[in-house]
């Protein structure tokens, strides 16, 4: 690791800053703001960077050595990374892995993503843990605090889903059941999991109406993960309410939150969210705990479920937050975490099998 000097800063909206060196796309003025969040996964940076759910976020990796196995052609979870920045302790410029094609900083440069290394990421993580996630931006150290603070006073955008979702339907042919994947910013591995199960998948834009979805005669609909606040897309809720009556439904992450909202439950913002590959989730029915991969800032309020037709199926073992819901009347269920993995453990891939079962 070569420290080129501390001349770049990560500014937090409360005026606190951390200094490091630019290792991603070069920048000479304030970068686009993002919500700064931390992820505790020790592997999987390529998947994380390319996960559309990180749209408009600046991601801090808590593991200190990032980029050691490089970047390869297979591990992307979307075509274009949507995050606003990456913060690491040390980036590896000389990766080693048989699949590696180029280095992480090459990737960041290619997609114009600014990044800093040399940051005490543990200290930053503790700060975020205490103060909560907040707006942030990167800037050279010659930019004044006032200038950055003025910029960070602006509100965050609320159009993340529309920016990362597909604009047109895309068909991935398969010989089995047809599944419509509603794209709020889906990860490729959700698609891979469906294709692996021989599904015929149609990915549709997030704002598709019921009719345009049902015209594909789906055996089931999967509501994908996606970035931002679920309350930013209220137009989706009636669509989901109707869909669950018509076809089996599975929902992941953002999809799960929308499914809950559609059925009358409420969501709230967590202080710093859940991001990592080690979150224990207890399945209430089987009394088994699974390791899950998570990435969310918002969660369904547990106390809002009682009055809905939803049933709590899974909880987070650590903070008892809502991890899984099922509709009492319809074959529809949702999980807050990422059963598709990539990155993270594959413990809950059985949920896709359960979805397949529900489509029989």
């Amino acid at each position: 690791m070569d420290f080129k000097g501390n001349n770049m800063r990560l500014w937090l909206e409360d005026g606190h800053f951390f200094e490091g060196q630019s290792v991603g796309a070069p920048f000479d003025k304030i970068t686009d703001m993002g919500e700064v969040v931390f992820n505790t996964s020790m592997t999987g940076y390529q998947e994380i960077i390319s996960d559309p759910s990180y749209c408009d976020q600046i991601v801090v990796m808590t593991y200190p050595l990032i980029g050691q196995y490089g970047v390869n052609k297979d591990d992307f979870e979307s075509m274009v990374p949507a995050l606003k920045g990456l913060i690491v302790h040390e980036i590896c410029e000389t990766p080693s892995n048989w699949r590696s094609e180029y280095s992480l900083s090459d990737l960041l440069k290619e997609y114009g993503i600014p990044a800093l290394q040399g940051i005490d990421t543990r200290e930053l993580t503790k700060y975020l843990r205490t103060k909560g996630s907040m707006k942030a931006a990167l800037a050279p150290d010659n930019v004044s605090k006032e200038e950055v603070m003025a910029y960070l006073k602006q509100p965050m955008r609320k159009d993340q889903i529309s920016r990362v979702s597909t604009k047109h339907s895309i068909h991935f042919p398969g010989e089995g059941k047809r599944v419509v994947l509603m794209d709020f910013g889906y990860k490729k591995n959700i698609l891979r999991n469906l294709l692996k199960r021989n599904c015929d998948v149609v990915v549709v834009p997030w704002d598709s109406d019921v009719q345009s979805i049902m015209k594909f005669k789906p055996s089931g609909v999967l509501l994908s993960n996606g970035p931002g606040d679920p309350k930013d897309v209220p137009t989706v809720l009636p669509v989901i309410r109707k869909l669950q009556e018509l076809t089996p439904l599975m929902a992941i992450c953002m999809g799960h939150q929308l499914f809950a909202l559609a059925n009358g439950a409420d969501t709230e913002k967590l202080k710093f969210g859940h991001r990592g590959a080690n979150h224990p989730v207890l399945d209430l029915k089987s009394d088994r705990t699974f390791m899950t991969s998570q990435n969310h800032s918002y969660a369904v309020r547990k106390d809002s479920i009682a009055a809905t037709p939803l049933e709590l199926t899974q909880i987070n073992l650590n903070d008892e937050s809502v991890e899984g819901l099922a509709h009492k009347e319809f074959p529809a269920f949702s999980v807050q975490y990422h059963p598709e993995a990539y990155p993270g453990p594959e413990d809950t891939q059985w949920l896709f099998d359960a979805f397949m079962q529900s489509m029989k």
Partner: protein
Amino acid sequence: MPRHQHLKKVLVIGSGPIVIGQAAEFDYSGTQAVHSLKEEGVEVILVNSNPATIMTDEETADKVFIEPLTTSFISRILHQEKPDGVLATLGGQTALNLALSLKESGVLDRLGIELLGCNMETIQKAEDRKLFKELMQEIGEPVPESIITKTVEDAVEFSKKIGFPLIVRPAYTLGGTGGGIVKDEEELRVITYKGLQASPINQCLVERSIAGFKEIEYEVIRDAKDNCIIICNMENFDPVGVHTGDSIVFAPSQTLSDRDYQLLRSSALKIIRALNIQGGCNVQYALDARSNQYYVIEVNPRVSRSSALASKATGYPIAKIAAKIAIGMSLDEIMNPVTKKTYACFEPALDYVVCKFPRWPFDKFVTADRRLGTQMKATGEVMGIARTLEESILKSIRSLEIGLSHIELERAEKMALPELLDLMQKPDDERMFIVAAAIRKGASLDEIAQLTNIDMLFLQKIHNIIAMEHKLAMVSSPEKELIHKAKKLGFSDKKLAQIYKLKESEIRALRKQWKLSPVFKMVDTCAAEFESTTPYFYSTWDQSSDTLSETGKQKVIVLGSGPIRIGQGIEFDYATVHAIKAIREMGLEAIVINNNPETVSTDFNISDRLYFEPLTTEDVLNVIEQEKPIGVIVQFGGQTAINLAESLHANGVKILGTDLDGIDRSENRKRFEELLRELKIAQPLGYSVFSFAEAREKIQELGFPVVVRPSYVIGGRAMEIVYDEKELEHYFNTAVKVSPEHPVLVDRYMIGREMEIDAICDGKNVFIPGIMEHIEKAGVHSGDSFAVYPPQNVDIATQKKLINFTTQIAQSLKVVGLVNVQFVIHKGEVYVIEVNPRSSRTVPFLSKVTKVPMARVATKAILGKSIIEQGYVHGHKEESDEIAVKAPVFSFAKLTEVDTALGPEMKSTGEVMGRDLVFEKALHKAFIAAGINVPQAGTVLITVADKDKEESIPLIKRLSALGFSFIATKGTCELMKEHGVNVSMIAKIDEAEKDIIWLIRTQGCDLVINTLSRGKNVESDGFKMRRAAAEKGICCMTSLDTVEALIKTLERQSFDLSPL
């Protein structure tokens, strides 16, 4: 699931003496398990033969049995105690094998005792090569092609189908004893033969070698509900081919993508489920560096050395959790003891890098084969924690205490590149240094990677360190920015000082001036996601420290003893733990600095704060500056800690306990002589000499034999007993480098009974808990001799003299704390051989047998509570009725080319204790516990040196009376015949086809008695014979005193068979 209520009483089996492949990690896991069970209200009975363990402390379990770990002794304990269950998954392979044989013997079923943590089927499926392979095939997990064989011929036939290289692994052996990689038929034949011999069921696995693959390990835990989690994965610096215990290991994995990581993670979960393990398990993988092909190498269905490492690397206490699972609890109901806010059912996230570096005994065993393979050779290990991989490597190298403060070995640096490139292809203990030297000499990383299969990432990191050396050397004096960058890569002040030709203290002063200091971060299992109060810290070069929770109490720092090595083993960790406990009992805060991941002292629950750091002046001072203790205790961490006293003192640190002057007076030869002269206490006459000629002259006065040793040690052949001028000359020519600064010490060798005392002094009163008598005469290192408490052959008057001398010495040295004094009684006179103002190897043994927690009493004395205040007396404690014998335990079978003959250099790795009310019974237990195959009858092979012939005759006659028959070589044979002993003759080595070696290899004898002869050829013949015995597991005794002890135990057991 709450714990099984019917389990009210559980027997925990320990792992016995420390041997290579099974060390202090099982004291750590066993102690944790006992605490964990007691926490749940279970009554715990513990059995272990190793007194130098915390687990065998009276206060640890409800009842502690220090007894031999054999089926018959444990059966008796089971009958007496009638526990509801037996927990054997925390005592290494020893305990697991015992569980298996207890189950097979039927005693468990007969008494209705459950085997906890795993069942027979699990053990068999994981340990039996054939069953394991079948299971893997059944669940679709890849294993390399292999055959299970009981004959060499089958192995050869298999090789004809598969080709070479192949790997041979004997079944059910510790640390893979007897196995190896073979490249041709001849090697295959030899290794298979040895492997079959080593295996208790005469079974070997011969398989396709996957040497060169990445070696990856996963630590897994599963509960009865089928919840499965990974605690940690690890990646070896050394590719497959080097035993994982001998590998440099990083945690977490460094070159695995998430897909690679999850591929193996999912496989590990599948395997632990298929084996139905409830508790901890370790799965080892070989992963192709060029594809995603992987193979399962091995599974340990128990807590292992790797799980101790994983526990320390992550902060997740595997053994503690595994014990709770064994009594029926599940992961989702056990609290995470680290965060105390989350549950044990999660996978730790690290925000640092851990480097484990093995510690090998080749400094002591210079003749040993240093090459590393499937047979583990390391005696211990260290761990370095940091935020960069480079720093983790350099911290671990500094922790090794092999005289290095950087990744730089003088020997390697002197070699030419071709030699280095050649050497690095044969892995040995110095390979990382060879690689570094080659990089310095300009070898390309690609070339090194090709030759060694070491991953480019690791080579690149070493290269980064070397590139920094160049940058530093480019400027003529230290520059702040550059020094800061070097520190982030882990450079020590010592290395920086060397580069700039400054003193270490000058670099430190510069850093202070520049305000460059390390920060301290917490190991919290969750990468700071949750708030945590773990008192577990490491230093690193980053921006901010984690805050310490201050209690306002005064703090005392205890220095640990570093890695386990020959001569400085678990005994010192034992004392360290007791010191910590005493400090806490006194209401002060105890802070420990140590770097050994295997031990109890580095369990963060033991102290108020644990710092995982190298034990060097720089690293220790950093902690002191952070913590500001009232002082530092150096007397429990062996020579490691004592050696730091002077430099710490020079830096203004208060050394608590015996002061520096006291330490110096005992260590400085001249001052020590003066002291004894003042006290009118005799010591063997001796001189410091500066040449062979001078030595010869002094010996005129001293007379042969003499003990010679260099004041400066090269290579480890430190001390020898020399019998004539020729040997003396040889010694001067080969073993030592004499210089005006480094004289050779020549002392009269006094043959006689050796005695040892550990005493506690509070500066005024001296309390002597007990006296130990050595069974072997002076000349055998005290660590290698049998010892007995209380003395059996020394009269009260002499004992009084020993007590008086000890008291006088302790008082004159102004000892505060522990002191160890060694004596020899020569012709009725008492001579003092050595005084160590610190905790010694015998402290745990003596503490156990006298029931005086010596290290604890000593610590309290150090902190100002007098011996009298603590309820002890000035003088000797009344002897107990119990007799205890300490027996040394060796790891010779694992270290080929090491002479098993005992001498002044220590060779044992561990010890056991035999206790009973009768000396011979205690002795007998000690023999059995030490694993010495005591023959009840049979044939004895005898070759004794001329000097011992006279002494040997009465012993031979007693053996004869016991019904033994004899085989001897010519000289001994003739002598025996002269004395009317029936004996057959055997040819010396190579004098006939059926020579001594043939006799031993064909197991034509049950006991070998061989005393050291002088003269080159005879010595090498004796060496071959002793090695042959070691490899065949035949008891070989090289001291007639040990033989006599053995005879005593046999006589005690034999019935008189005389007719009326």
